[in-house]
């Protein structure tokens, strides 16, 4: 049973997604069903991480006599679709399942009044399937298929409130960006397939010789995944999509963005690992892209009046930290001394920041969703004095805002500090930009706090009460995680983050299918 765990990771949410439309008449039951399914997947992903830590890389071959049969007798190349799960795959799977669960819990009350909820939950579960498939697969074409599943489900959810024209506008923007990016991924996969006659990631990474065609394929993959994770020249779809999507989907949509970031790391670290000279250049490109992303994102955020839009621009800016951290690691990947001194720390910072950012940004977007739920507006100028009416939401917002600004006892500080001290070693200017961004972030959240929660109570919000229980529970879970990750960063780093970092650095293990062949 336990050896079929990777297949179950996909099968359970897929089953849940296709059963949900059956509960068309009973909208409460479908919400509980989705919460149940996502809770089960959380359990499965924790089990998966445990297995990965116990046995190293897990390989699962679909349709083989035995799930571990990579090369059947007489074959020299793998021909079947396979899943290959190492530290970073399991890490991303935990983030995805946890956030889908919290999102489903939050949605229970947040979208209660809307129609078509059975489709909403079916799409939420499909989005989870897409993310999980992307982070677990070891096959390039499979990566494309799951990328498209996540893109279609995500954009359909962005346009879920179809009585608003803006939702459809944001939805089609997201869909155009994601389908162009996926088609270019498919084109690059075609190039690699034509050259090496195989689709297996580990197999191709052993063959790559880095001629002109490979460079074109690498460029296409890099650009497409950077586009889908909202790095700067292609960031315009992020604020629209995050603003219009119902707040319960925001966590899952954030993770789907970072699944593309994962694919970017996988392509640069594993697929093209053999090109030792050019990698430093790619690492520099990634770091500079990161600095640009964080700075442009935060400057755009400062002028926003719409609370969710402001937070979405911060999401762009925070993606920059991850690109910077991992980019610094990539720059020194083939320099063992520098890698041991600060490269590994930088990557740990970048990858730790992924889960931290997913947690506190989901928390913040959920508090914004709660504000929208009670006031019916997202304009900061129309809000005020809500702190007394909604004490728990206010507390959750303070935790989230402190975490995103990198104040000490919260999780944002833990990962940002790792990035500061390591990027300083590569080039002090990188660290300076990262710190300035952090200060600007704090400034803009002080503005949100002052205009939404402080000030005299407004007459029109006299009857406002705290949001319903499921929303509060979802927010409190995330706020507690913020504090726990901030207080005990060493535990998280040891158990989750460093296995992920070592999985990226240690290519040989991935290439040998975990020692199976």
């Amino acid at each position, binding site marked *: 049973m336990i050896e079929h765990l990777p297949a179950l990771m996909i099968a359970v949410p897929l089953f849940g997604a296709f059963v949900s439309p059956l509960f068309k008449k009973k909208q409460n039951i479908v919400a509980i069903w989705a919460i149940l399914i996502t809770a089960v997947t959380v359990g499965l992903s924790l089990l998966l991480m445990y297995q990965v830590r116990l046995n190293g890389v897990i390989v699962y071959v679909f349709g083989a006599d035995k799930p571990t049969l990579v090369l059947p007798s007489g074959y020299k190349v793998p021909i079947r679709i396979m899943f290959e799960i190492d530290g970073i795959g399991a890490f991303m799977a935990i983030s995805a399942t946890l956030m889908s669960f919290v999102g489903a819990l939050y949605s229970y009350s947040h979208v209660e009044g809307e129609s078509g909820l059975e489709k909403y939950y079916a799409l939420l579960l499909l989005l989870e399937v897409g993310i999980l498939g992307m982070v677990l697969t070891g096959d390039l074409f499979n990566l494309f298929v799951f990328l498209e599943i996540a893109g279609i489900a995500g954009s359909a959810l962005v346009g879920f409130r179809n009585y608003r024209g*803006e939702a459809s506008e944001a939805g089609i923007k997201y*869909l155009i960006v994601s389908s162009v990016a996926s088609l270019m991924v498919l084109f690059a996969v075609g190039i690699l397939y034509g050259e090496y006659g195989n689709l297996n990631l580990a197999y191709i990474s052993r063959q790559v010789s880095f001629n002109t065609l490979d460079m074109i394929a690498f460029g296409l993959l890099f650009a497409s995944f950077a586009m889908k994770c909202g790095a700067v020249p292609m960031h315009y779809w992020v604020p629209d999509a995050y603003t219009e999507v119902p707040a319960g989907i925001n966590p899952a949509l954030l993770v789907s963005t970072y699944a593309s970031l994962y694919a970017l790391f996988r392509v640069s670290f594993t697929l093209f690992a053999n090109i030792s000279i050019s990698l430093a250049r790619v690492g520099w490109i990634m770091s500079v892209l990161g600095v640009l992303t964080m700075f442009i994102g935060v400057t755009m955020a400062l002028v926003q009046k719409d609370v969710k839009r402001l937070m979405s621009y911060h999401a762009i800016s925070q993606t920059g930290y991850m690109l910077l951290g991992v980019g610094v690691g990539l720059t020194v990947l083939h320099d063992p001394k520098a890698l041991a001194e600060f490269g590994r720390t930088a990557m740990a910072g970048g990858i730790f920041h992924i889960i931290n950012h997913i947690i506190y940004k989901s928390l913040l977007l959920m508090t914004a969703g709660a504000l929208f739920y009670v006031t019916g507006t997202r304009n900061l100028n129309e809000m005020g004095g809500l702190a007394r009416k909604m004490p728990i939401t206010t507390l959750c917002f303070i935790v989230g805002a402190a975490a995103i600004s990198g104040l000490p006892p919260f999780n944002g500080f833990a990962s940002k500090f790792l990035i500061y001290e390591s990027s300083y070693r590569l080039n002090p200017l990188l660290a300076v930009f990262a710190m300035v961004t952090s200060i600007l972030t704090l400034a803009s959240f002080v503005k949100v706090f002052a205009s939404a929660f402080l000030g005299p109570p407004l007459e029109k919000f006299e009857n406002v009460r705290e949001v319903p229980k499921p929303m509060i529970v979802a927010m409190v879970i995330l706020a507690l995680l913020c504090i726990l990750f901030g207080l005990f960063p060493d535990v998280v780093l040891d158990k989750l983050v460093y296995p992920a970092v070592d999985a990226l650095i240690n290519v040989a293990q991935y290439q040998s299918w975990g020692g199976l062949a």
Partner: protein
Amino acid sequence: MNGNIWVNFPFIVVALLLALGFYTIGFKRNLIKVVIGIEILEGAVNLFLVALGYVRGGYAPIYTLAPSEAANPQNMVLPTPQALTLTSIVIGVAVSALMLAFAVNIYKHYGTLDVTKIRRLRG
């Protein structure tokens, strides 16, 4: 050696279609035409995959139906590119259906399909 030029012909068409698709997405103002541009891109990528898998004089890899001179597996083509293309076509249908549904909904709310006027989300 005349054949060599024609071997590359599908790839030249792929390049032209890619350019055309990107031009349509980037410069056309009608939303429906943008959707058509994405369909052209998809056609280009599908053609690329199929052209990769084409082998002159090869047989379909169905052992029971192949004529006797194809009994040697060397003469059969690899079915993977066709399988990839089929999958990609199916996904493409879903994407275009969803995009057209969005376009219909946008027309209902904005009364126009001009992408320069569909700009309520900004800043």
